[in-house]
């Protein structure tokens, strides 16, 4: 049986590494819409139940303005769940110096996988030069930046990265949600084709009117990265989107884990 048939029979495939490359954790700090909040242990338990071996998350607290405290709390969480939780430390230009120092202090930590930026929440567009100190720091060290992108939000239209990447061509970048819309997805795919270190986060592209099979026809396969956006969104959504699709099993394995581990350069997801 292939993966689709196995899942349709009600079984989550054992030994299939799944790494969630874009998640959020916190203690109820985000409330622009109602978000169901539960202890991190239970969040990780739901992930495990549906086959996700480990997740890389940023902090809600950091996202809402408490960058240093949020990042510190996230690293405490990672220490508590070292095999299942990895950290993106948050950066925003408003308190850039303090956050960059914090990133530097944690960069050698095994659970650190990269930096998260959310230009809309930070109210600072990627069109500006405000993120340059971070880009410069990360490009020199090969550190991945996960950026929230959505084509209709002026602060983080993925197309704005064409100009950034002219200045920082070796920047390792994961385009969160692939820009969200059809146009955003197309810009993201173009970036991933033009720049070696630009990767595509497939959550969010669910709303782009591009089915995943068509996405695989359009984008470089090695650039497609699995993620869920939990605990904003239900992780079962994107797990199902990949596992029940008509993509072949080898590509599903690449998307679900292998591509991200190759991008980071090490094994992250526990193997059974």
């Amino acid at each position, binding site marked *: 049986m292939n993966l689709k048939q196995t899942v349709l029979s009600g079984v989550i495939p054992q030994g299939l590494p799944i790494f969630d490359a874009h998640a959020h954790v916190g203690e109820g700090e985000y409330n*622009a*819409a109602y978000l169901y909040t539960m202890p991190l242990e239970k969040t990780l338990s739901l992930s495990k139940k549906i086959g996700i071996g480990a997740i890389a998350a940023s902090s809600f607290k950091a996202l809402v303005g408490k960058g240093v405290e949020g990042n510190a709390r996230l690293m405490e969480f990672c220490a508590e769940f070292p095999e299942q939780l990895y950290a993106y430390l948050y950066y925003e230009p408003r308190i850039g110096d303090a956050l960059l120092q914090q990133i530097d202090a944690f960069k050698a930590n095994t659970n650190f996988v990269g930096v998260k930026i959310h230009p809309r929440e930070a109210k600072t567009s990627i069109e500006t030069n405000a993120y340059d100190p971070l880009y410069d720091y990360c490009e020199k060290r090969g550190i991945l930046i996960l950026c929230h992108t959505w084509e209709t939000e002026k602060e983080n239209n993925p197309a704005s990265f064409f100009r950034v990447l002219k200045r920082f061509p070796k920047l390792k970048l994961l385009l969160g949600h692939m820009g969200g819309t059809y146009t955003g997805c197309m810009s993201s795919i173009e970036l991933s084709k033009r720049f070696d270190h630009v990767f595509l986060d497939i959550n969010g592209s669910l709303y782009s*009117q591009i089915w995943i099979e068509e996405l695989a026809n359009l984008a470089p396969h090695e650039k497609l990265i699995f993620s869920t956006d939990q605990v904003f969104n239900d992780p079962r959504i994107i797990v199902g989107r990949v596992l029940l*699709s008509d993509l072949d099993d080898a590509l599903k394995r690449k998307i679900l884990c292998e591509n991200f581990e190759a991008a980071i350069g090490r094994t992250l997801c526990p193997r059974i």
Partner: protein
Amino acid sequence: MIFKDINSGFYLEKRSGLYAATMEEVSLCGEALGIVAGAYINLERGCGTLRQANDITRMRCKEKTGRYPVLRMLPPGYPDEHHSREEAVRLILEEKALFRVCPGQDASPLTLWMFGWMLEMLVETKTPLLVSLQELDLRDAAEVKQAYPDLRLVITNTTQWMNRQYIRFAQHFPEVYFDTSNIIEYYGIENIVELLGAERILFGTNMPEKEPYDKVFQLMHCELSEVEKQLIAHGNFERIVEVR
């Protein structure tokens, strides 16, 4: 597990980005996942008048059992833009037709003064009226529900950014249903069932605008009882679409 899809559609030709677009493609893709019946709307905008577009839907649905036509409903202003009351009742009785309003796309807000007798007719025949939350002003819908509390309103394509509004709306008014197509919130399906009951949720995919895979997997692996899962997957569809 079998599924019956309240929120499905089709185009007349293949479309870029959509792995399945035509009625046959959508239907086959669904069948491979256990979707055995569906309510289909014609999404093609360039295929004639409303009546011609609805006739295509009806014709395609007659080709196979388990397909129910969702007819676009425009207000009874221009005589050639709407079905007469007698005709609409006949389509409901003979073909188990459902109706959908598109307040945004059709510039026709869902209000009493816009749709008049059509709402009364839907109540009398217990026919579901579908509408996307992304096109709906819930203040308009509240006026309609105050006048017609028994109107079966199926709100599709919900958005988590309006979850406080739509949950309160359904807590306040009876006969309000949601489809699963955009319930993406964390533990969203479990939460909504806890607040409203499984009887108020219908399995919906929003094919072909998006894939159905996420919705099938979500329902298979959600933390609800078997009875609740079966209601959402197909039981509620059978009650409000097939039996009425």
